[in-house]
Protein backbone atom coordinates (compact mmCIF):
# COMPACT_ATOMS: atom_id res chain seq x y z
CA UNK A 1 0.00 0.00 0.00
CA UNK A 2 2.89 2.34 0.56
CA UNK A 3 5.05 4.22 -1.90
CA UNK A 4 8.78 4.17 -1.48
CA UNK A 5 10.96 7.06 -2.63
CA UNK A 6 14.68 7.10 -2.94
CA UNK A 7 15.72 10.02 -0.76
CA UNK A 8 14.70 11.10 2.70
CA UNK A 9 12.84 14.40 2.93
CA UNK A 10 14.26 17.72 4.01
CA UNK A 11 12.48 19.66 6.71
CA UNK A 12 10.97 21.84 4.04
CA UNK A 13 9.76 18.82 2.11
CA UNK A 14 8.12 17.38 5.19
CA UNK A 15 6.34 20.72 5.65
CA UNK A 16 5.14 20.60 2.03
CA UNK A 17 4.03 16.99 2.49
CA UNK A 18 1.90 18.02 5.48
CA UNK A 19 0.49 21.05 3.69
CA UNK A 20 -0.69 18.79 0.88
CA UNK A 21 -2.82 16.84 3.36
CA UNK A 22 -4.57 19.91 4.75
CA UNK A 23 -7.93 20.33 3.06
CA UNK A 24 -9.26 23.53 1.54
CA UNK A 25 -10.99 25.72 4.10
CA UNK A 26 -9.48 23.97 7.10
CA UNK A 27 -8.87 25.76 10.40
CA UNK A 28 -5.32 24.93 11.39
CA UNK A 29 -2.96 25.53 14.30
CA UNK A 30 0.75 25.11 13.63
CA UNK A 31 2.01 25.27 17.21
CA UNK A 32 5.49 26.75 17.50
CA UNK A 33 8.87 25.99 15.98
CA UNK A 34 9.28 23.59 13.04
CA UNK A 35 5.59 23.05 12.25
CA UNK A 36 5.21 26.75 11.48
CA UNK A 37 7.16 25.98 8.27
CA UNK A 38 3.98 24.35 7.00
CA UNK A 39 2.53 27.84 6.58
CA UNK A 40 4.95 28.54 3.75
CA UNK A 41 3.33 25.73 1.76
CA UNK A 42 -0.30 26.57 2.44
CA UNK A 43 -2.18 28.65 -0.04
CA UNK A 44 -3.99 31.00 2.34
CA UNK A 45 -5.92 32.25 -0.68
CA UNK A 46 -7.35 28.73 -0.91
CA UNK A 47 -9.10 29.38 2.35
CA UNK A 48 -6.97 27.65 4.95
CA UNK A 49 -7.30 29.74 8.13
CA UNK A 50 -4.53 29.77 10.71
CA UNK A 51 -5.31 29.90 14.42
CA UNK A 52 -2.80 31.05 17.00
CA UNK A 53 -3.39 30.15 20.64
CA UNK A 54 -2.74 33.71 21.79
CA UNK A 55 -6.10 34.80 20.46
CA UNK A 56 -6.41 35.08 16.70
CA UNK A 57 -7.92 33.43 13.68
CA UNK A 58 -6.65 34.50 10.27
CA UNK A 59 -3.00 34.79 11.14
CA UNK A 60 -0.77 35.56 8.16
CA UNK A 61 2.92 35.20 7.43
CA UNK A 62 5.80 36.63 9.47
CA UNK A 63 5.86 40.43 9.49
CA UNK A 64 8.79 42.32 8.03
CA UNK A 65 9.97 45.91 8.24
CA UNK A 66 7.19 48.38 8.87
CA UNK A 67 4.64 45.60 9.25
CA UNK A 68 6.11 44.62 12.61
CA UNK A 69 3.67 45.38 15.44
CA UNK A 70 4.61 44.15 18.94
CA UNK A 71 0.88 43.67 19.63
CA UNK A 72 0.53 41.19 16.77
CA UNK A 73 2.54 38.04 17.40
CA UNK A 74 2.15 34.30 17.03
CA UNK A 75 2.46 31.59 19.68
CA UNK A 76 6.22 31.60 19.20
CA UNK A 77 6.17 35.36 19.93
CA UNK A 78 7.22 36.20 16.38
CA UNK A 79 5.55 39.25 14.76
CA UNK A 80 3.05 38.24 12.08
CA UNK A 81 0.54 39.96 9.82
CA UNK A 82 -3.24 39.84 9.76
CA UNK A 83 -5.18 38.39 6.81
CA UNK A 84 -8.59 39.62 5.64
CA UNK A 85 -11.37 38.07 7.71
CA UNK A 86 -9.19 37.79 10.81
CA UNK A 87 -10.64 38.03 14.31
CA UNK A 88 -9.22 38.49 17.80
CA UNK A 89 -10.44 36.94 21.03
CA UNK A 90 -9.18 36.47 24.57
CA UNK A 91 -7.31 33.47 25.92
CA UNK A 92 -10.28 31.64 27.46
CA UNK A 93 -12.15 31.90 24.16
CA UNK A 94 -9.06 30.86 22.20
CA UNK A 95 -8.53 27.72 24.24
CA UNK A 96 -12.28 26.97 24.29
CA UNK A 97 -11.94 26.86 20.49
CA UNK A 98 -9.08 24.38 20.83
CA UNK A 99 -10.42 22.23 23.68
CA UNK A 100 -13.86 22.21 22.09
CA UNK A 101 -12.57 20.39 19.03
CA UNK A 102 -13.22 23.15 16.52
CA UNK A 103 -9.81 23.16 14.83
CA UNK A 104 -9.57 20.74 11.93
CA UNK A 105 -5.84 20.14 12.10
CA UNK A 106 -3.06 20.89 14.50
CA UNK A 107 0.59 20.24 13.65
CA UNK A 108 3.02 19.69 16.51
CA UNK A 109 6.61 18.68 16.99
CA UNK A 110 7.44 15.67 19.16
CA UNK A 111 10.14 13.92 21.15
CA UNK A 112 8.25 10.64 20.78
CA UNK A 113 4.99 9.30 19.39
CA UNK A 114 3.71 5.86 20.36
CA UNK A 115 2.04 3.49 17.93
CA UNK A 116 -1.20 4.10 19.85
CA UNK A 117 -0.95 7.82 19.11
CA UNK A 118 0.32 8.94 22.52
CA UNK A 119 2.38 12.12 22.25
CA UNK A 120 5.43 13.31 24.18
CA UNK A 121 6.60 16.79 23.30
CA UNK A 122 6.79 18.88 26.45
CA UNK A 123 9.27 17.34 28.87
CA UNK A 124 12.36 15.21 28.44
CA UNK A 125 11.93 13.74 31.88
CA UNK A 126 15.38 15.01 32.89
CA UNK A 127 15.23 15.54 36.67
CA UNK A 128 16.78 19.02 36.55
CA UNK A 129 14.64 20.31 33.67
CA UNK A 130 12.32 23.21 34.40
CA UNK A 131 8.90 21.98 33.30
CA UNK A 132 7.10 24.17 30.74
CA UNK A 133 4.03 23.02 28.88
CA UNK A 134 2.49 26.11 27.28
CA UNK A 135 -0.46 25.18 25.07
CA UNK A 136 0.88 21.76 24.03
CA UNK A 137 -1.53 19.67 26.11
CA UNK A 138 -4.53 21.72 25.01
CA UNK A 139 -3.55 21.38 21.35
CA UNK A 140 -2.83 17.67 21.69
CA UNK A 141 -6.34 16.83 22.82
CA UNK A 142 -8.28 19.54 21.07
CA UNK A 143 -7.97 19.34 17.30
CA UNK A 144 -10.00 16.96 15.13
CA UNK A 145 -6.71 15.68 13.70
CA UNK A 146 -3.29 16.02 15.28
CA UNK A 147 -0.37 15.70 12.88
CA UNK A 148 3.16 15.35 14.22
CA UNK A 149 6.16 16.67 12.29
CA UNK A 150 9.51 15.23 13.38
CA UNK A 151 12.56 13.31 12.28
CA UNK A 152 12.01 9.58 12.51
CA UNK A 153 15.25 9.02 14.40
CA UNK A 154 16.93 10.93 17.18
CA UNK A 155 20.58 11.98 17.08
CA UNK A 156 21.65 8.62 18.45
CA UNK A 157 19.72 6.83 15.72
CA UNK A 158 16.94 5.65 18.04
CA UNK A 159 13.40 5.60 16.71
CA UNK A 160 11.11 8.39 17.93
CA UNK A 161 8.14 6.29 16.85
CA UNK A 162 7.95 3.88 19.78
CA UNK A 163 5.86 1.01 21.13
CA UNK A 164 5.26 2.99 24.32
CA UNK A 165 6.37 6.44 25.45
CA UNK A 166 9.38 6.65 27.71
CA UNK A 167 9.16 10.46 27.97
CA UNK A 168 6.33 12.09 29.97
CA UNK A 169 3.11 12.22 27.94
CA UNK A 170 1.54 15.38 26.53
CA UNK A 171 -1.66 13.56 25.58
CA UNK A 172 -2.89 10.01 25.13
CA UNK A 173 -4.15 8.51 21.88
CA UNK A 174 -4.34 11.93 20.32
CA UNK A 175 -2.02 11.76 17.27
CA UNK A 176 -3.48 10.59 13.97
CA UNK A 177 -0.52 10.98 11.60
CA UNK A 178 3.24 11.27 11.94
CA UNK A 179 5.17 13.01 9.15
CA UNK A 180 8.91 12.35 9.18
CA UNK A 181 11.93 12.63 6.93
CA UNK A 182 11.71 8.89 6.27
CA UNK A 183 8.00 8.47 5.83
CA UNK A 184 4.45 9.16 6.86
CA UNK A 185 2.69 6.90 9.34
CA UNK A 186 -0.80 6.51 10.69
CA UNK A 187 -0.97 5.73 14.37
CA UNK A 188 -3.82 5.03 16.77
CA UNK A 189 -6.06 2.19 17.80
CA UNK A 190 -5.30 0.12 14.67
CA UNK A 191 -1.57 0.28 15.25
CA UNK A 192 0.98 1.88 12.94
CA UNK A 193 0.49 1.91 9.18
CA UNK A 194 2.91 3.15 6.56
CA UNK A 195 1.50 5.80 4.23
CA UNK A 196 4.73 6.47 2.38
CA UNK A 197 8.46 5.87 2.80
CA UNK A 198 11.44 8.00 1.83
CA UNK A 199 15.01 6.72 1.58
CA UNK A 200 14.22 3.62 3.58
CA UNK A 201 12.81 0.23 2.58
CA UNK A 202 10.03 -1.43 4.53
CA UNK A 203 12.54 -3.94 5.84
CA UNK A 204 14.96 -1.25 6.97
CA UNK A 205 12.06 0.58 8.63
CA UNK A 206 11.01 -2.52 10.56
CA UNK A 207 14.59 -3.21 11.61
CA UNK A 208 15.50 0.31 12.71
CA UNK A 209 12.22 1.02 14.54
CA UNK A 210 11.63 -2.48 15.85
CA UNK A 211 7.94 -2.04 15.01
CA UNK A 212 5.51 -4.12 12.98
CA UNK A 213 3.63 -1.97 10.50
CA UNK A 214 0.37 -2.75 8.76
Amino acid at each position, binding site marked *: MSETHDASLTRDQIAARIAADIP*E*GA*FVNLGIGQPTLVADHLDLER*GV*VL*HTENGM*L*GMGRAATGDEIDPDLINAGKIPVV*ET*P*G*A*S*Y*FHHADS*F*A*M*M*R*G*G*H*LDVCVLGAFQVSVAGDLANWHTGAPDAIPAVGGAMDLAI*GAKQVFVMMTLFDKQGGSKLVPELTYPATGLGCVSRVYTDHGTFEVGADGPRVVDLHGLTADELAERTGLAFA
Partner: protein
Amino acid sequence: MTDVIERSDATAAADEAVADIPDGATVLIGGFGSAGQPVELIDALRRHGAGDLTVVNNNAGNGDHGLALLLREGLVRKMICSFPRQSDSWHFDELYRAGRVELEVVPQGTLAERMRAAGAGIGGFYSPTGVGTLLAEGKEERELDGRRFVLERPLSGDYALVKAHVADRMGNLVYRRTARNFGPVMATAATTTVVQVSRVVPTGDLDPEAVVTPSIYVDRVVVL
Protein backbone atom coordinates in the same frame (compact mmCIF):
# COMPACT_ATOMS: atom_id res chain seq x y z
CA MET B 1 -15.70 26.58 5.59
CA THR B 2 -18.83 28.65 5.47
CA ASP B 3 -21.44 28.39 2.73
CA VAL B 4 -23.14 31.65 1.88
CA ILE B 5 -26.64 30.98 0.56
CA GLU B 6 -27.96 33.80 -1.57
CA ARG B 7 -31.09 33.59 -3.68
CA SER B 8 -33.49 36.16 -5.03
CA ASP B 9 -36.20 34.08 -3.34
CA ALA B 10 -35.57 34.42 0.39
CA THR B 11 -38.01 31.65 1.27
CA ALA B 12 -36.15 29.24 -0.99
CA ALA B 13 -32.86 30.33 0.60
CA ALA B 14 -34.18 29.67 4.11
CA ASP B 15 -35.56 26.31 2.99
CA GLU B 16 -32.18 25.31 1.55
CA ALA B 17 -30.41 26.35 4.77
CA VAL B 18 -32.35 23.86 6.93
CA ALA B 19 -33.07 21.15 4.34
CA ASP B 20 -30.78 18.53 5.91
CA ILE B 21 -32.09 18.70 9.47
CA PRO B 22 -33.29 15.17 10.20
CA ASP B 23 -36.08 13.87 12.42
CA GLY B 24 -34.91 13.53 15.99
CA ALA B 25 -32.33 16.33 15.79
CA THR B 26 -31.47 18.57 18.72
CA VAL B 27 -31.82 22.16 17.49
CA LEU B 28 -30.52 25.15 19.46
CA ILE B 29 -32.59 28.20 18.55
CA GLY B 30 -31.34 31.67 19.44
CA GLY B 31 -33.33 34.57 20.77
CA PHE B 32 -34.69 36.02 23.97
CA GLY B 33 -38.32 36.77 23.30
CA SER B 34 -38.33 38.00 19.73
CA ALA B 35 -34.92 39.75 19.92
CA GLY B 36 -32.47 37.55 18.06
CA GLN B 37 -35.06 34.91 17.25
CA PRO B 38 -34.36 33.54 13.74
CA VAL B 39 -38.03 33.52 12.79
CA GLU B 40 -37.51 32.91 9.07
CA LEU B 41 -35.27 29.89 9.74
CA ILE B 42 -37.78 28.50 12.22
CA ASP B 43 -40.53 28.93 9.65
CA ALA B 44 -38.36 27.09 7.13
CA LEU B 45 -37.81 24.29 9.63
CA ARG B 46 -41.57 24.03 10.06
CA ARG B 47 -42.11 23.83 6.29
CA HIS B 48 -39.31 21.26 6.08
CA GLY B 49 -41.29 19.20 8.55
CA ALA B 50 -38.57 17.35 10.48
CA GLY B 51 -40.22 15.98 13.60
CA ASP B 52 -39.38 14.45 16.97
CA LEU B 53 -37.12 17.46 17.59
CA THR B 54 -35.51 18.51 20.83
CA VAL B 55 -35.50 22.29 20.85
CA VAL B 56 -33.38 24.48 23.11
CA ASN B 57 -34.51 28.08 23.44
CA ASN B 58 -34.91 30.45 26.36
CA ASN B 59 -38.69 30.37 25.99
CA ALA B 60 -41.27 28.00 24.54
CA GLY B 61 -42.79 30.12 21.84
CA ASN B 62 -44.80 33.30 21.85
CA GLY B 63 -48.08 34.11 20.12
CA ASP B 64 -48.75 32.52 16.76
CA HIS B 65 -45.41 32.67 15.02
CA GLY B 66 -41.92 31.19 14.93
CA LEU B 67 -41.26 28.57 17.61
CA ALA B 68 -44.90 28.62 18.75
CA LEU B 69 -45.99 27.30 15.35
CA LEU B 70 -43.24 24.67 15.32
CA LEU B 71 -44.73 23.44 18.58
CA ARG B 72 -48.32 23.64 17.34
CA GLU B 73 -47.43 21.48 14.35
CA GLY B 74 -46.36 18.73 16.74
CA LEU B 75 -42.77 18.72 15.48
CA VAL B 76 -41.20 19.16 18.92
CA ARG B 77 -40.83 16.17 21.22
CA LYS B 78 -39.00 18.04 23.98
CA MET B 79 -38.35 21.67 24.98
CA ILE B 80 -35.31 22.60 27.01
CA CYS B 81 -35.76 26.17 28.21
CA SER B 82 -35.66 28.47 31.22
CA PHE B 83 -39.00 30.25 30.92
CA PRO B 84 -41.77 28.42 29.06
CA ARG B 85 -44.73 30.04 30.79
CA GLN B 86 -45.58 33.42 29.35
CA SER B 87 -48.76 35.37 28.76
CA ASP B 88 -48.74 34.34 25.10
CA SER B 89 -47.29 30.81 25.24
CA TRP B 90 -50.70 29.23 24.62
CA HIS B 91 -49.55 26.65 22.09
CA PHE B 92 -46.90 25.29 24.42
CA ASP B 93 -49.22 25.44 27.44
CA GLU B 94 -51.88 23.40 25.65
CA LEU B 95 -49.42 20.74 24.44
CA TYR B 96 -47.79 20.51 27.83
CA ARG B 97 -51.05 20.09 29.71
CA ALA B 98 -52.10 17.44 27.17
CA GLY B 99 -48.84 15.57 27.82
CA ARG B 100 -47.79 16.00 24.20
CA VAL B 101 -44.46 17.75 24.79
CA GLU B 102 -41.69 17.07 27.31
CA LEU B 103 -40.19 19.94 29.27
CA GLU B 104 -36.79 20.36 30.89
CA VAL B 105 -36.62 23.62 32.82
CA VAL B 106 -33.06 24.91 33.30
CA PRO B 107 -32.06 28.14 35.06
CA GLN B 108 -31.24 30.64 32.36
CA GLY B 109 -27.57 31.06 33.27
CA THR B 110 -27.11 27.32 33.57
CA LEU B 111 -28.68 26.90 30.14
CA ALA B 112 -26.16 29.34 28.65
CA GLU B 113 -23.22 27.87 30.57
CA ARG B 114 -24.10 24.28 29.64
CA MET B 115 -23.94 25.24 25.97
CA ARG B 116 -20.76 27.20 26.54
CA ALA B 117 -19.28 24.06 28.17
CA ALA B 118 -20.27 21.96 25.16
CA GLY B 119 -18.56 24.40 22.83
CA ALA B 120 -15.48 24.64 25.04
CA GLY B 121 -14.89 20.91 25.52
CA ILE B 122 -15.72 21.01 29.23
CA GLY B 123 -17.12 17.71 30.53
CA GLY B 124 -19.10 19.26 33.36
CA PHE B 125 -19.01 22.12 35.83
CA TYR B 126 -20.05 22.87 39.37
CA SER B 127 -22.61 25.66 39.61
CA PRO B 128 -23.99 27.34 42.73
CA THR B 129 -27.23 28.11 40.87
CA GLY B 130 -30.24 26.11 41.97
CA VAL B 131 -28.61 24.45 44.97
CA GLY B 132 -31.29 23.28 47.40
CA THR B 133 -34.11 23.78 44.89
CA LEU B 134 -36.39 21.48 42.88
CA LEU B 135 -34.20 22.04 39.83
CA ALA B 136 -31.20 20.47 41.59
CA GLU B 137 -33.05 17.24 42.31
CA GLY B 138 -31.24 14.24 40.92
CA LYS B 139 -28.08 16.24 40.31
CA GLU B 140 -24.82 15.49 42.07
CA GLU B 141 -24.24 18.00 44.85
CA ARG B 142 -20.80 18.79 46.18
CA GLU B 143 -19.23 21.15 48.67
CA LEU B 144 -16.12 22.94 47.42
CA ASP B 145 -14.29 25.47 49.60
CA GLY B 146 -17.28 25.61 51.93
CA ARG B 147 -19.90 26.38 49.30
CA ARG B 148 -22.49 24.02 47.84
CA PHE B 149 -22.57 23.36 44.10
CA VAL B 150 -24.43 21.09 41.70
CA LEU B 151 -22.81 19.30 38.77
CA GLU B 152 -24.10 20.49 35.43
CA ARG B 153 -23.40 18.76 32.12
CA PRO B 154 -22.70 20.17 28.67
CA LEU B 155 -25.61 20.71 26.29
CA SER B 156 -24.81 20.46 22.60
CA GLY B 157 -26.93 20.59 19.48
CA ASP B 158 -26.89 18.90 16.11
CA TYR B 159 -27.91 22.25 14.63
CA ALA B 160 -28.01 25.84 15.83
CA LEU B 161 -30.31 28.37 14.20
CA VAL B 162 -29.03 31.84 14.99
CA LYS B 163 -29.90 35.37 13.96
CA ALA B 164 -26.99 37.79 13.63
CA HIS B 165 -26.79 41.24 12.11
CA VAL B 166 -23.96 41.22 9.55
CA ALA B 167 -21.69 38.44 8.29
CA ASP B 168 -18.66 38.64 6.06
CA ARG B 169 -18.17 36.06 3.28
CA MET B 170 -16.01 33.92 5.55
CA GLY B 171 -18.77 33.69 8.15
CA ASN B 172 -17.53 36.10 10.80
CA LEU B 173 -20.50 37.61 12.64
CA VAL B 174 -21.55 40.74 14.47
CA TYR B 175 -24.86 41.14 16.26
CA ARG B 176 -27.14 44.04 17.18
CA ARG B 177 -27.66 45.17 20.78
CA THR B 178 -29.51 42.70 23.03
CA ALA B 179 -30.35 40.53 20.00
CA ARG B 180 -26.90 39.04 20.58
CA ASN B 181 -28.10 37.02 23.61
CA PHE B 182 -27.76 33.22 23.07
CA GLY B 183 -26.49 33.35 19.47
CA PRO B 184 -22.72 33.38 20.05
CA VAL B 185 -22.93 30.57 22.62
CA MET B 186 -25.20 28.36 20.54
CA ALA B 187 -22.93 28.82 17.51
CA THR B 188 -20.11 27.17 19.48
CA ALA B 189 -22.24 24.29 20.76
CA ALA B 190 -23.73 22.85 17.57
CA THR B 191 -22.30 20.51 14.97
CA THR B 192 -23.82 22.65 12.21
CA THR B 193 -24.54 26.34 12.76
CA VAL B 194 -26.95 28.08 10.40
CA VAL B 195 -27.11 31.87 10.66
CA GLN B 196 -29.55 34.32 9.17
CA VAL B 197 -28.25 37.85 8.71
CA SER B 198 -29.52 41.12 7.32
CA ARG B 199 -26.46 41.62 5.17
CA VAL B 200 -23.28 39.94 3.94
CA VAL B 201 -20.22 42.13 3.43
CA PRO B 202 -16.93 41.34 1.69
CA THR B 203 -14.31 39.54 3.77
CA GLY B 204 -12.17 42.17 5.42
CA ASP B 205 -15.01 44.66 5.95
CA LEU B 206 -15.66 43.68 9.58
CA ASP B 207 -13.35 45.08 12.25
CA PRO B 208 -11.30 42.08 13.51
CA GLU B 209 -11.44 43.56 17.03
CA ALA B 210 -15.24 43.65 16.97
CA VAL B 211 -16.08 40.23 15.50
CA VAL B 212 -18.25 38.45 18.07
CA THR B 213 -18.54 35.01 16.47
CA PRO B 214 -15.43 33.97 14.52
CA SER B 215 -16.04 32.17 11.24
CA ILE B 216 -14.88 28.83 12.62
CA TYR B 217 -18.25 28.44 14.34
CA VAL B 218 -20.37 29.23 11.30
CA ASP B 219 -21.32 26.66 8.66
CA ARG B 220 -24.04 28.43 6.68
CA VAL B 221 -25.01 32.05 6.29
CA VAL B 222 -28.25 33.03 4.64
CA VAL B 223 -29.40 36.58 3.92
CA LEU B 224 -33.04 36.99 4.94
